[in-house]
């Protein structure tokens, strides 16, 4: 058994991965003329903002629309636990846009399901692609997969993946925690 908690990605690795994800996105979206970026609250927004910033720098397009989306009111585990909403801040309509949806960890897929529903309040997108930093393989409850993946990991349900960001935890890194 490896010791817990364990760092599975450090700052350097994270930086390389984010850079790679940006390049992959540019391959599909080119100059982002008809694309928008949406980060999922509460933890996906840090990754999404980084990606958005890097994309602006690489493509030179300073006007790529960016928004934070909170999915609390669309969740299916409402009443199973107390859920506190975060801010949604989307000041554009996503009608006929190519949406890049970004979250930190893909686990059961339920947050993304709620995110897809929540997004529809802002219009009918042309298509939606999912970007995640960590894909916890074999743990899905719903048929949802990411198109762009930072790192795929194998983990059991009792484990937890925690992503730290400079903005909130003063350092970039990804932890694998074992609950016991």
């Amino acid at each position, binding site marked *: 058994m490896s010791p817990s908690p364990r760092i599975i990605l450090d700052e350097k690795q994270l930086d390389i991965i984010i850079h790679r994800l940006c390049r992959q996105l540019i391959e599909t979206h080119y100059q982002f003329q008809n694309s928008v970026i949406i980060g999922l609250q509460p933890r996906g927004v840090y990754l999404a903002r980084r990606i958005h910033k890097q994309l602006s720098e690489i493509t030179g397009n300073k006007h790529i629309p960016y928004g934070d989306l*909170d999915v*609390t*009111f*669309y969740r299916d585990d*409402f*009443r*199973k*636990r*107390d*859920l*506190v*909403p*975060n*801010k*949604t*801040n989307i000041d554009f*309509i996503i009608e006929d846009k190519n949406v890049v949806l970004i979250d930190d960890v893909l686990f059961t897929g339920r947050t993304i399901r709620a995110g897809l*529903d*929540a997004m*529809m*309040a*802002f*219009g009918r997108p042309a298509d939606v692609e999912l970007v995640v930093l960590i894909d916890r393989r074999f743990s899905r409850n719903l048929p949802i997969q990411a198109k762009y993946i930072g790192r795929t990991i194998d983990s059991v349900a009792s484990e937890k993946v925690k992503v730290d960001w400079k903005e909130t935890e003063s350092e970039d890194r990804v932890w694998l925690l074992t609950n016991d």
Partner: protein
Amino acid sequence: MTRLSTKHLLGIKDITVDDIELIFSTAENFKEVINRPIKKVPSLRDITIANLFFENSTRTKLSFELAEKRLSADVINFSASGSSVKKGETLIDTVNNILAMKVDMVVMRHANPGAALFLSKHVDAKIINAGDGAHEHPTQALLDAFSIREKLGSLKGKKVAIIGDILHSRVALSNILCMKKLGAEVMVCGPTTLMPKHISELGVEVEFDLRKALEWCDVANMLRIQLERQEIKYFPTLREYTMQYGLDKKLLDSLNKKILILHPGPINRGVEITSDVADSDQSIILEQVENGVAVRMAVLYLLAGRSEN
């Protein structure tokens, strides 16, 4: 703080400052929701809510109903006129019959003070008090405080004057409790006949001169003269009341500062405030109405979502 400390919303008296802050932060999220192209979220899609209005209401009823529908709840409406209440059915029987149809929450307005509390002790549903006699009207106080906070940043240290018919007003009591909990200083102002005895024991200042109250305050909440509740004459004529306690533009402009004007509605234009005051840029009466939906959505959401474990 992720949940309310209480199962029902019966009055401001029973909730904590943390509860109020939680309701406000949730209401901010709902305010964003109701300004979207699609104003509806599916949070309460498996919840049925009965609106029981044993007393007339336009604004509160519409506001609650809209809040419920924006949260995707199923809604049934009941008003006392044209119901079995007229045939002599008791309150508990009426409500239990409605609950037998599998209703999860009850929003109730009733003429008797304490009706909501009484109901909460006898039926198995979450109760929201939408006004019980001259006792409390908690969601009104919450939306008033939310609206003031939105304009002034915080209630702490602010001076709020509640002016008019204090005696018959449930809005007054809920407002006093709410504003004080949030750290504001409160003054009540009105004719001596419409001032409840011992009201200063609530920790409020009492003033009988409208101009002095206005000069003191940052926010004036103008209450409606509730003629329907006044069985006896409390002042000689409406005209005399207006002369003494009506707020007009001339008086408002003569103050050496800009105060906020609130009114819980419905306005008697030309009685407690004149049209040019109600429609002035200092009045936030319509913001109160918009915020009312957001605040009620927050209350419904937080009570319905409160997990029992």
